[in-house]
């Protein structure tokens, strides 16, 4: 089977004042159409860097990414990204946020009416049709992430990239979102790469789990095929022997083979401090 996406021997080297820092070393991965892939690994292992290279937001130092036979050189809507912090434009309503993407991607292919239907279809898909006219600050974190997913789906991407999409949500909301995502996946059968910290999430959602070693020079440590029938139900799987074996394998990789000794780094969200306004006047 011909893979839709070929991540071909990529290295990523960041120049720093103290010399070059090799974040990724020889990451090599082929992904088939309709496959759901999870990237899992400790903080700072370069999962996000892999995703950003596929998205085109970063350029690999060597090696490259080939999507449908063409090399990825810049970001584009055929590789839609769902960001961890939803990244909705705060001044637009849920509908307008999706509209911005649809207008950009389907400017020539759809008329006004079709666009409206397409936007509404995608918002309905993520169960946000009741709050289309709400702005991001008027809805909960989970709802924002739903709109973010709707925006990405509305671009009709070849491959959907998700950077810890549910990382900022509480456990119950996260479970809801995972169920929604599986429901959508059953309908659309997208090709997905998802970054996650959550072992259960990875096993529940994925066809394959890519486990990454710790950086520097992070690379793919092990790949675990998840052979569980779909649709999957979290309740049934909790008692499923196979599921628990997969889970144990991931846990063993993370906490035995790749145990992190150094103190945990600050999470992404903590680093984001807005500069105060008045000090610069």
């Amino acid at each position, binding site marked *: 089977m011909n893979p839709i996406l070929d991540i071909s021997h990529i290295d990523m080297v960041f120049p720093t004042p103290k010399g070059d820092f090799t974040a990724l070393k020889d990451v090599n991965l082929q992904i088939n159409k309709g496959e759901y892939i999870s990237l899992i690994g400790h903080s700072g292992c370069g999962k996000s860097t892999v995703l950003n290279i596929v998205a085109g937001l970063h350029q690999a130092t060597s090696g490259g990414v080939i999507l449908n036979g063409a090399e990825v050189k810049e970001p584009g*809507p055929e590789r839609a990204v769902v960001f961890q912090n939803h990244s909705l434009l705060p001044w637009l309503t849920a509908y307008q946020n999706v509209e911005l993407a649809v207008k950009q991607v389907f400017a020539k292919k759809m008329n006004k009416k079709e666009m409206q239907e397409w936007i509404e279809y995608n918002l309905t898909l993520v169960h946000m049709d009741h709050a289309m006219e709400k702005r991001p600050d008027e809805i909960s974190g989970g709802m924002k992430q739903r709109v973010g997913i709707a925006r990405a789906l509305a671009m009709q991407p070849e491959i959907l990239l998700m950077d810890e999409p549910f990382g900022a949500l509480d456990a119950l909301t996260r479970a809801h979102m995972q169920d929604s995502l599986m429901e959508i996946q059953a309908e659309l059968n997208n090709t997905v790469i998802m970054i996650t910290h959550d072992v259960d999430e990875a096993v529940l959602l994925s066809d394959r789990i890519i486990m990454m070693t710790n950086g520097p020079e992070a690379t793919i440590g092990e790949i675990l095929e998840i052979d569980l029938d779909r649709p999957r139900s979290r309740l049934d799987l909790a008692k499923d022997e196979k599921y628990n074996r997969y889970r144990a394998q991931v846990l063993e990789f993370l906490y035995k083979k790749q145990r992190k000794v150094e103190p945990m780094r600050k999470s992404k969200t903590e680093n984001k401090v807005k*500069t105060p306004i008045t000090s610069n006047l």
Partner: protein
Amino acid sequence: MSIVTLANKATNNVGIANSLQHILTKYLNVFIAPFLGILFFLGIWSIAAQNIQTSLGVFPGPSAVLTQFSSLYEEHLAERDKADAFYERQEKRNAARVAQDPNYVAKVRKYTGKETFLDQIITSLITVMSGFILATVIAIPLGITLGLSKILNTAINPIIQIFKPVSPLAWLPLVTMVVSATYVSDDPFFAKSFLNSMITVTLCCLWPMVINTSIGVAALDQDLLNVSKVLRLPALTHVRKIIIPSSIPMMFTGMRLSLGIAWMVLIAAEMLAQSPGLGKFVWDEFQNGSSESLSRIMAAVLVIGFIGFLLDRAMLYLQRLVSWDKSNAAL
């Protein structure tokens, strides 16, 4: 009556007392406290004023200023009556001449009476708004450009840093000379004095707006920038849909700062340049030196303060209307 109902009644009373206290605190904050503050100020003012002797008599207290307000208004009405009478006489005269000689082209002359206090207020308001709007038209696009280009920002930043601390009044003589040299016209649409004041206001409004806009643009959230990249938004759409909305709160911060400075500067510029406006009114009264001058100046001071306050509030309302970020525009 059982103990339980008694107890209930007691809690009920406490509840009523609590809500009463709540309402009281609210009124205390909203009305009573500011009212007491003003009353206290008036008291101090009135006592202090009685004890200050100047060459023009006793320093005006609140009551002297209050009477001055009504006499300023009466003067305004009287002046308007005079103007009306003048135009009526002119019309009659012209009508009479046209009746005598049908070929006569009637001349209409403008009434050239003294500008009243109200006229000066309006002149000042028009000047400050024109200068401010002109500055906005220049500063916002410039700020966006600087915010977008790091190199351009580094190139222009030293110039901004040097001109920013210059009091616009230092510009005034230069502006005056340049305007009188370059704006030569037999039938000027704008008075030169108006241009001088307006350009001075513009010069002082520019910097806070340029700086705040460029900071707002440069501080664009990386995530939103990535969204724009993934969507491959063309440059112009990127500016229109992402950059401008996201920096609107900072733009308004700059605009409010500018307008506040502009109003202060304008009064000083009018005093210095003798261009019509509230500043000229204050200076004329000072030169006039009558027994009423001080109370008239004090009335002008209060009006200047009140208008400055209103201008700031107006900007705030505009911000609330336009900006998506309401937290930045709390009243």
